[in-house]
């Protein structure tokens, strides 16, 4: 491996994570940018690229209030390459795009970011109005007329197949939320820092069977930044670089109901085709859990267990606990860490690989981590390594 041909995550940053924050979303983004620059020892003048998902979404500003255009102009970045859009293989697709730019010499240090302001927007609709149309169009027309109005109802149907076909139980699925909440207790920045018991989980009200309220993440206000740097520029960086060893983002059909199976499965399979690492080499898994069931399918998709075995793999919770054989979502995932929308998983993978997890740091000098976003119908997986 010639490191000059590789791309690395260098500085990482995170704003305050909260609900109904008053701080402007651009300033949350700047907070995260500054933390990432400080860690890397870089100045804004050294940043020559920006990449984000999904770009500014004017009709749903809470979902994505700050686009690449605005950030570049607001911070005076002289960009030789940038991208920001939603038609990409889910949130961490923004990192995949940045790696492509770096490997082709179009940029040396790229700020990748995701800013969410959904809780604040919901609380202050006069400032962040949702634009509603009289009629739905595009892909929404195939679900909304049947009152399938939330991704919860779409993922619940995949989860129901696991219940019926593979005998997934609520007690098994509960381990994702229980693990998240236990880990979040050790993360000072986590959104939800209260313990959770199995009894509380089982008595939580149903949203869409088999998913209950505690299987879902919650609207959050926060910004997360990952700086992706060229191997040849690492001498400018003071933090431990984390190599992006492999990437995948395979999609069969970008559709909530026409895809035979979730995109995580093809993505997980394809990730291992692009590396000599094996699932057994992974020291920690940071797997998208906007709904708990997604993390379970990622475990199967990435080959940590067979398809259909996810429920039994996490049963009892020991295997995925902080001191287990495959620590999962050590920052609390999205369910307890906050709905950072994909970027939180890569952020935490880097924290753990650098040994900077503090109270939640996993033991044993971790060197390889996997981080994912989405799961279906869009999915992205990153394999990260500390050399």
């Amino acid at each position, binding site marked *: 491996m010639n490191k000059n041909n590789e791309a690395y995550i260098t500085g990482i940053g995170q704003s305050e994570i909260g609900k109904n924050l008053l701080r402007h979303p651009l300033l949350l983004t700047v907070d995260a940018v500054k933390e990432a620059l400080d860690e890397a020892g870089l100045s804004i003048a050294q940043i020559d690229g920006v990449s984000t998902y999904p770009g500014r979404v004017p009709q749903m500003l809470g979902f994505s209030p700050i686009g690449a255009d605005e950030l570049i102009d607001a911070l005076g970045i002289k960009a030789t390459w940038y991208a920001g859009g939603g038609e990409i293989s889910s949130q961490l697709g923004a990192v995949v795009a940045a790696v492509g730019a770096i490997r082709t010499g179009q940029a040396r240090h790229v700020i990748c970011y995701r800013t969410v302001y959904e809780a604040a927007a919901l609380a202050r609709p006069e400032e962040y109005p949702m634009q509603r149309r009289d009629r739905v169009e595009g892909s929404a027309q195939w679900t909304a*007329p049947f009152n399938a109005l*939330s991704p919860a109802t779409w993922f619940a149907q995949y989860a129901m197949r696991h219940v019926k076909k593979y005998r997934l139980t609520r007690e098994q699925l509960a381990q994702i939320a229980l693990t998240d909440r236990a880990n979040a207790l050790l993360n000072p920045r986590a959104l939800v820092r209260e313990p959770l018991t199995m009894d509380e989980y089982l008595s939580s009200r149903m949203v869409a069977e088999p998913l209950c309220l505690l299987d879902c993440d919650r609207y959050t206000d926060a910004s997360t930044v990952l700086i992706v740097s060229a191997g040849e520029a690492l001498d400018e960086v003071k933090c431990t670089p984390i190599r992006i060893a492999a990437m995948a983002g395979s999609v069969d059909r970008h559709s909530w109901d026409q895809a035979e199976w979730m995109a995580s499965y093809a993505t997980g399979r394809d990730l291992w085709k692009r590396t000599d690492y094996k699932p057994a080499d992974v020291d920690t898994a940071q797997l998208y859990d906007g709904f708990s069931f997604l993390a379970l399918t990622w475990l199967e998709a990435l080959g940590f267990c067979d398809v259909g075995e996810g429920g039994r793999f996490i049963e009892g919770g020991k295997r995925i606990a902080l001191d287990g054989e495959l620590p999962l979502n050590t920052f609390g995932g999205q369910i307890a860490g906050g709905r950072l929308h994909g970027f939180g998983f890569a952020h935490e993978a880097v924290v753990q690989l650098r040994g900077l997890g503090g109270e939640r740091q996993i033991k044993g000098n971790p060197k390889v981590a996997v981080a994912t976003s989405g799961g279906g119908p869009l999915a992205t997986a990153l394999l990260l390594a500390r050399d």
Partner: protein
Amino acid sequence: MRPLPRLDSINRDFWTGGEQGELRIMCCNDCGTFFHPPRPVCRHCLSDHVATKAVSGTGVVDTFTINHQKWHPKMEVPFVIARVELDDAPGVYLTTNIVGCEVSEVDIGDRVQVTFEKQDDIFLPLFVKTA
């Protein structure tokens, strides 16, 4: 009240076929493949020689959920959201509601038949269980 689709030249047949009692799915005149959502090109052979065709409206519940959450205050819950695979159009799935039975009576593999619910100018293809 359900959110309704905006009609255009491509989706109109699907959303209004119920007026004649027909479930109309896009089909390729060259290779015979059914596909959905409707588009002016066949996703199997790329032919633009395509048109909607009425199918029998029978199918099977591929998967489902029982929705308990009121996504808006006036929503009546619980109800079943299901993904139905159509007998005559292999590989085509419709998100829909299973109506006319208790929510607890729906299961994967159930045989179902289309029924249309009219709202304004739209005929929503819902499904009922068949014996």
